[in-house]
């Protein structure tokens, strides 16, 4: 009874809306088209609740227009999507970073005067390089020790002065920048080894 009462009430409102729409329709050659659309609107407004009442167990194409996704479900779907995205994205980022670090290490060690290199690549969320930090060991002693004598043809690595380090740093920065098309400011060199 309540449902019937609701349908009758809604029907009255629909009739009022339809009459009003009829009133504000434009004159001229487009009027029949607008009347047709308004007719469809009235039909759907009456048909939708009637079908829901008569065939409660069946879903009609009309129902799809009324379908509204619950906010909670929407959020959970979104969260799951993010989770899957992270699951795929993070390992790939790690692989890219480690491969890039290996390449940079191999290249940098070819520069004369470089004994050992440890690079660290930081990437942006879009996969582009954010920063490259290189820890370079030139093999020179970190502190000066007293030596008995100087051997001119010694096998020991020679101490590299500040100018030499600058030259090495410039060379490595230019090489990385040219090879990977990265701005030079993104490459940072640290002579941790001395």
């Amino acid at each position: 009874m309540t449902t019937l009462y609701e349908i009758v009430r809604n029907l009255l409102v629909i009739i009022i809306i339809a009459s009003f729409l009829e009133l504000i329709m434009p004159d001229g050659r487009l009027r029949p088209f607008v009347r047709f659309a308004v007719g469809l609107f009235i039909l759907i407004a009456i048909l939708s609740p009637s079908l829901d009442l008569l065939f409660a167990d069946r879903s009609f194409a009309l129902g799809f227009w009324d379908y509204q996704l619950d906010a909670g479900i929407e959020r959970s779907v979104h969260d799951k999507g993010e989770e899957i995205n992270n699951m795929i994205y993070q390992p790939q980022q790690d692989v890219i970073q480690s491969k890039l670090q290996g390449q940079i290490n191999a290249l940098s060690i070819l520069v004369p005067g470089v004994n050992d290199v440890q690079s660290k690549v930081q990437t942006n969320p879009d996969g582009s390089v954010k920063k490259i930090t290189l820890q370079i060991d030139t093999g020179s002693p970190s502190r000066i020790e007293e030596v008995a004598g100087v051997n001119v043809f010694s096998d020991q690595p020679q101490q590299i002065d500040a100018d030499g380090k600058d030259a090495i740093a410039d060379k490595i920065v230019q090489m990385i920048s040219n090879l990977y098309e990265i701005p030079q400011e993104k490459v940072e060199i640290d002579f941790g080894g001395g």
Partner: protein
Amino acid sequence: MDITQIVGLALMVTVFLLILRQEKPVMAVLLSIVFSIFIFIMMMDKMGAIINIMKELTRRAGINYFFMTTILKILGVAYLGEFAAVICQDAGEQAVAKKVEFASKIMIAVMALPIMVAILESLLELMPG
């Protein structure tokens, strides 16, 4: 601005148009366009009030607002199409007016299509067999 002002303005514009049509027809068309736009802009607020009431009525009747927005869009397209077509007719460009009407008709048909398809699919589903 109430109806007396609109009527006064319309009469003035009509007189100007009568004079301008003889002397400078291009200016007459321009004045006609400006007047149409002016009336349209002036009625915007009032149209907004009507739309709000319709929105409220639709909510109370439990009708999906999607259908109502579609109908309002169709009305908007029809009004704009009529405006443009009448202006073109005033300028003596019947062919352009016809094209504007044609485009408006197609736009209205395209917008009414989802509602029509939904009704048809539901009715076909109801049919036995």
